């Protein structure tokens, strides 16, 4: 670890604080007995889908398409995950298979 222990603890506490805020916010803004406005209900239905996509891109932000490995290991591993998941629909199998392929590629091939 590059930072001091207290700095690590503060970092974690900030992560806790941010997460807790996101969880409690709707219950504070919309107290019991009041129905939330329709826009909020609509967003509640569609936004989780967009978040899914955003998280995928976020986790791939360190990929360098024009240098290094050109993102080939990532692309291959994701293709394996998609294929496994469409085939078996087992979360464990898909993640384990994709990660194993990725580790093999970055450690042995590239």
């Amino acid at each position: 670890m590059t930072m001091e222990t207290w700095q690590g603890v503060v970092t974690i506490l900030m992560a806790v604080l941010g997460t807790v805020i996101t969880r409690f916010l709707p219950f504070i803004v919309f107290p019991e007995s009041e129905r939330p406005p329709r826009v909020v209900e609509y967003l509640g239905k569609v936004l989780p889908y967009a978040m899914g996509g955003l998280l995928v891109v976020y986790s791939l932000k360190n990929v360098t398409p024009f240098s290094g490995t050109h993102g080939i290991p990532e692309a291959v591993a994701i293709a394996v995950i998609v294929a496994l998941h469409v085939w078996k629909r087992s979360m464990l199998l898909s993640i384990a298979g994709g990660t194993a392929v990725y580790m093999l590629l970055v450690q042995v091939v590239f």
Partner: protein
Amino acid sequence: MRVNRETLSKALRAAVPKSLPVCVSFLFLALSYGVLMGTKGFSFVWPMCMSAFIFTGSMEFVTVNLLLSAFNPIAAFLLAIMIGARHIFYGISMLGKYRNMGVKKFYLIYGLCDETFAVNSGAKIPQGVDHGWFYCFVTLLNQFYWVLGATLGGLLGERLSSLNTNGLEFILTGLFVVVFLDQWMSSERKSHMAALLGIVIPVICLTLTGSWFPRWSSCSCCSLRCGGIWMISNRRMGRMQEQARMRVWTR
């Protein structure tokens, strides 16, 4: 409120089978998270505390990177808000179900992670089982699996440091891809649009901000921006759909 033992055991017996699928995937994911931290040189106390207190998998994986880079608590806070933004919508969906829960409500909200939301929002609770305690036990069991896995993984990881675990961090990408696929395959077409926008807009933002791999600061501001763009385009989409519906209806 007096609680009798029968109410508790009934709720627990209803909650255990519903949380079993989560048990398997949580142990696996948390174990790999713990191993990852262990191989980066952290004692098992770190993953144990982080899994218990942060208790949202994606942010925990991200925090590993934060701990390994320069000290920046504000970036950590903003990232937690952005990555956790989805919780706001879980909360909105659970407003009705978590009503009148008394003190339990605080813990239910605190422990409302993706999987707990999935189980509690969709669960058909058997007759005669107390809803509040059922939700509570599902939340508690899920958190228990997660902390257990992370702690075991941390213990294991400390001893694995000689092993080549390069690439293990891809588990996080794998998790997100699988969640995305599950949403995609179980949703109607309207949500595909949202899912695609969730991919396309961040990619455009990453390209526009000059690099595909921004620093934390530019990453946070581009995500905020894409959130704004997304909401505007989505509003417009919603309005168009409404108009289309009206047209069909008046015809």
